[in-house]
């Protein structure tokens, strides 16, 4: 009998989970609500799509409880594109996560854009075979989510506003937090872990490597190619775009432009070319117009 020259498959390893996040680097993940939008996103060069029922701008406008999408919507989108399909579950709603896993979505976003299901705890993510992405506003929040098993982190920004200021604030906060750790003497790291509310071993690791142990993407408020390139120059490794594409004048053109801007994020001459004649972006909301209760980014613990 011929002996096999290979071993059996081992699935759902940490390396597999983080590996898919690595493959999405330098790309754009676009929110889509149906098969037509998913096709537009794929044709524009999206690296993945996020299947959801309403884009954040509509969730904000319509109010009420925002939940996981109808499975038939997700299946419809999975059928029409070949790129990875992600979907959102509510913070702490591990049954929505179980359902998304049964649907074989490629990534689960435990997202503050939906109404939280648990006001104290997030989903324990290590136990799932599907990788998770979670939002954060600062380094402590990022490391708590990684500690729970998130294989990708995205800064939250303020979804559905078309306003980049919160995304910038959160990315700067995470990057400053990382830079700070790299210059602290070792004896200060335990107290730093306590103050950040973050696992000590992750703090020690980042103090040595100067980077998060999983890819760090940006989300919440990207409306233009320049916004996307700004987030990349600030240290994002990829960009999520929610309402910014399908709430604009010309989604096809804008989607393609944002994809190109993420690749050529350091090339201002190309960015100028890419930014031409895209039509009107989404209107957007200034932060002063929002009350504390309207903020999505403060959801998550």
């Amino acid at each position, binding site marked *: 009998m011929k002996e096999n*020259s*290979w071993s059996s498959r081992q699935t759902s390893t940490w*390396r597999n989970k983080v590996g*898919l996040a690595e*493959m999405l680097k330098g790309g754009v993940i676009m929110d889509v609500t149906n098969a037509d939008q998913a096709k537009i996103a794929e044709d524009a060069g999206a690296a993945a799509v996020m299947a959801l029922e309403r884009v954040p701008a509509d969730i904000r406008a319509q109010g009420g409880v925002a939940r996981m999408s109808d499975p038939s919507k997700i299946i419809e989108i999975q059928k029409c594109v*070949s790129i990875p399909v992600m979907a959102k579950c509510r913070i702490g709603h591990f049954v929505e996560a179980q359902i998304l896993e049964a649907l074989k979505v490629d990534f689960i976003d435990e997202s503050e854009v939906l109404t939280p299901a648990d006001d104290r705890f997030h989903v324990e993510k290590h136990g799932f075979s599907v990788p998770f992405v979670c939002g954060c506003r600062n380094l402590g929040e990022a490391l708590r989510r990684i500690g729970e098993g998130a294989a990708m982190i995205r800064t939250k920004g303020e979804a559905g506003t078309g306003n980049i200021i919160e995304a910038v604030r959160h990315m700067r906060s995470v990057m400053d937090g990382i830079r700070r750790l790299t210059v602290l003497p070792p004896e200060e790291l335990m107290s730093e872990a306590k103050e950040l509310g973050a696992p000590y071993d992750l703090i020690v690791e980042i103090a040595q490597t100067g980077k998060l142990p999983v890819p760090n993407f940006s989300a919440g408020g990207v409306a233009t190619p320049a916004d996307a390139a700004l987030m990349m120059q600030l240290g994002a490794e990829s960009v999520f775009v929610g309402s910014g594409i399908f709430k604009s004048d010309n989604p096809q053109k804008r989607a393609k432009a944002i994809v*190109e801007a*993420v*690749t050529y994020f350091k*090339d201002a001459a190309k960015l100028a070319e890419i930014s031409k004649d895209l039509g009107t972006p989404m209107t957007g909301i200034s932060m002063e117009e929002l009350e504390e209760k309207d903020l999505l980014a403060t959801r998550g613990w």
Partner: protein
Amino acid sequence: MPMIGVLALQGDYEKHALMLELLGAGTLQVREPADLARVDALVIPGGESTTIGKLMAAYELLEPMRNRIAGGMPVFGTCAGLILLAAQTKENHQHRLGVLDISVQRNAYGRQVDSFEADIHIPAIGEKPFRAVFIRAPMVTEMRDSVITLAEFENKPVLMQKENILAGSFHPELTEDTRVHAYFLKMVAERGR
């Protein structure tokens, strides 16, 4: 010292660059034809092949890349890179180089929940098994005789070579094992001689 280009349109290009630098090679991120002219070899990374292919077409990289490869420049594609090198894919409308005589089916090993790792045997790099990481991997369904199989998994080729072209359906750049990249650098050195 040869300069190895890493196609940096989308995907895990930084992981490839880190591994090549660990082996002492110089690297350059390639985003436009002028970059391509400055490198002695090219790595096409993992990522989304549709995204990378569209950007290659939009930024006029397809023809210069085909010309360099036809002229003997060593090229190494992993996962999406393999798809972009392949002559045939099930979705034939996809932009790609089409320089390697293989047929590929995208995502044939399944969705992300079916992504896996396994030990494979690659005689060309030594006895020790290689831990291969497959992520929504493409399957090579057919191969012309002129293409040599360097490794297989479940009776399908997963690492193959035709002259100056090396292609794999898994991700050596996601491991600590540098032997496949070292093999590629050896191809580059032999070509320079």
